[in-house]
């Protein structure tokens, strides 16, 4: 099977969904512009026409309400924002409206809308282009929150989101867009609400999500060389969260480190630690722990983001501490890449 990028996988899912169901429409600022949202919406307008694929006014809140109204008459909207942070203008419509519509009207109307939000990092994205607010959205009853890591999951879960009868917040980390993976052709749906064990291990459970899964896997491979076998769980769906997979793994390993790309306080990782501590306290071999981003806005200057992110080295150190191991070589073995503020050579900005 050929290797495809995450962006190509997203693009394939959109083509597939629009081909399968003529009630699927796709809109957002820049969806039809020459850059086509980093290529994710390429050729959609050519193929499906301007009625179903369109650019929109800079009106995030109203355009979310438009998706709700259209959904009430059977239209499935996929709305895209180039950065999650712009979508904060739409909190009324998504929180007071979309999330509650089905419940609030006694189950008479479903709201099948998908909101694609892209999370930035590095290259000076700064305080308002880099927020990982999965915990915010997960806090709201009625929303589903999806955060795939691999290209295959990106395609399969976007298809599942579009055809889910509920509002789904679909979070794409910008640093994943150029990652490569095998992506099957056609209508491949990956069910929402199921985590994936991406590395099997026996000594400790590492629960992670989205781009943080990449750093966690680097750390897990390093720890394997040191004789610590990590089980890595990629959550994939933040809400509803797959507690069975986590609890089964912790039952096996007796240890937990929860990773998070969001701010520490009120994070998904905090929820994971809390639930595991409550349900598995008697079998835990050490105190459960977590690593998330500091409660600080992401700064802009590359000088200020040095050492700022949670990376493989931080994860490896944390795990080794939990096992009482010496961590003096970890930073040397897993140095911060230079430059540290891009995911790879391909990323030349501006965003």
């Amino acid at each position, binding site marked *: 099977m050929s290797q495809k990028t995450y962006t190509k996988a997203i693009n394939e899912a959109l083509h597939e969904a629009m081909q399968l169901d003529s009630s699927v429409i796709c809109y957002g600022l820049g969806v039809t512009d020459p850059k086509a949202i980093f290529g994710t919406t390429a050729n959609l307008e050519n193929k499906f026409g301007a009625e179903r694929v369109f650019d*929109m*006014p800079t009106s995030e809140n109203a355009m979310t*309400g438009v998706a709700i*109204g259209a959904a009430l*008459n059977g239209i499935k909207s996929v709305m895209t924002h180039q950065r999650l942070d712009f979508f904060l203008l739409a909190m*009324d419509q998504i929180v007071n409206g979309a999330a509650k519509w089905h419940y609030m009207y*006694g189950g008479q109307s479903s709201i099948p809308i998908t909101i694609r939000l892209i999370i930035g990092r590095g290259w000076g994205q700064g305080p308002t282009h880099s927020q990982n607010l999965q915990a915010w959205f997960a806090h709201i009853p009625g929303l589903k929150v999806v955060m795939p890591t691999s290209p295959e999951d990106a395609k399969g879960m976007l298809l599942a989101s579009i055809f889910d009868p509920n509002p789904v917040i679909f979070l794409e980390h910008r640093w994943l867009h150029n990652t490569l993976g095998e992506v099957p052709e056609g209508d491949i749906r990956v069910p929402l609400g199921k985590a994936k064990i991406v590395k099997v291990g026996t000594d400790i459970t590492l629960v992670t999500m989205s781009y943080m899964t990449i750093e966690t896997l680097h750390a897990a491979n390093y720890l394997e060389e040191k004789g610590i076998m990590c089980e890595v769980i990629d959550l994939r769906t933040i809400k509803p969260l797959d507690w069975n997979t986590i609890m089964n793994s912790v039952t096996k390993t007796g240890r937990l480190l929860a990773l998070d790309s969001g701010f520490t306080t009120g994070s998904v990782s905090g929820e994971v630690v809390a639930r595991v501590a409550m349900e598995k306290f008697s079998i835990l071999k050490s105190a459960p722990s977590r690593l998330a981003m500091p409660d600080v806005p992401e700064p802009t200057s590359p000088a200020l983001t040095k050492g700022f992110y949670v990376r493989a080295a931080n994860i490896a150190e944390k795990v080794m501490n939990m096992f009482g191991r010496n961590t003096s070589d970890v930073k040397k073995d897993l140095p911060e890449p230079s430059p540290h503020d891009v995911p790879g050579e391909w990323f030349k900005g501006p965003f």
Partner: protein
Amino acid sequence: MVEEEISRRYPEGKMRCPVHLSSGQESIPAAFALSIKKDDFAVSTHRGHAHYLSKGGNLNAMIAEIYGKSTGCSKGKGGSMHLIDRNVNFMGTSAIVGNSIPVGVGLALSIKLKDTDQISCIFLGDGAVEEGVFYESVNFAAVRKLPVIFICENNLYSVYSPLSVRQPKGRSIAKMVEGMGIEMSIGNDSDILSNQKLMEKAVSNVRSGDGPHFLEFPTYRWREHCGHNFDNDIGYRSQEEFLEWQAKDPLSLLEKKLSKDSIDLSKKLLSIKESIDSEVLAAFEFAEASPFPDQLEAYEGVYAEEETQ
């Protein structure tokens, strides 16, 4: 008459949710009822009882909803501020000012995508015009020339805050909206028949593809913002102002005119009123007799299992 019966019974404490009564503002939905088709869509606001009924919404289900019963139009999960009757395409109301406006515009977009001859109708108040989402919604409706009609009931107050502290003196809401590139009409504060003509014309223009239309009607809420009392004594508006508006109430004026014109009509009015009275009483009996939802239903229906249209 529905609202007045709610007012009479509200102090009993059995309707345990906020109610924003339409008393004084009924002539606008009354004109609306005669101007639209059953399959046209409508959305409304926290003050939505009259809109729901004017679209043909089921009265029993509305009263039961206010009583929090399982037979309520939202099964007790929405209350007075979340009314729905999908049988007549009344799609919802919202407790948040301006919240349902883009939803109505989205319905209009779906009409265009499906190429039917329906229209989408959005009720709003003068306060919603101060929300950003109103401008966003009107703008998109104008850009896409959507089949949507905005019906603004300007009752002069947002809760207790008068227009004078909220909008510049002398600026007309409708004229401002016209500046955004859509057609508008301004209704009359006392003549329901001329308002109905205005409404019919606007509906017909929108239906024939002329693009969105904004209608503004001057009106007055008789009772307090939320609840069953009169509140002219608390200091934000005067008894004189209230009496002035009551004297030009379009429904009372029409009733007087019709009764004066003919004894037959007068008798007919009386019998219509009697029949409505018994319908209203029956609705309250239905609501009182209906069971409450099971306590465990609170935890159900957060997510849809399948698409429901």
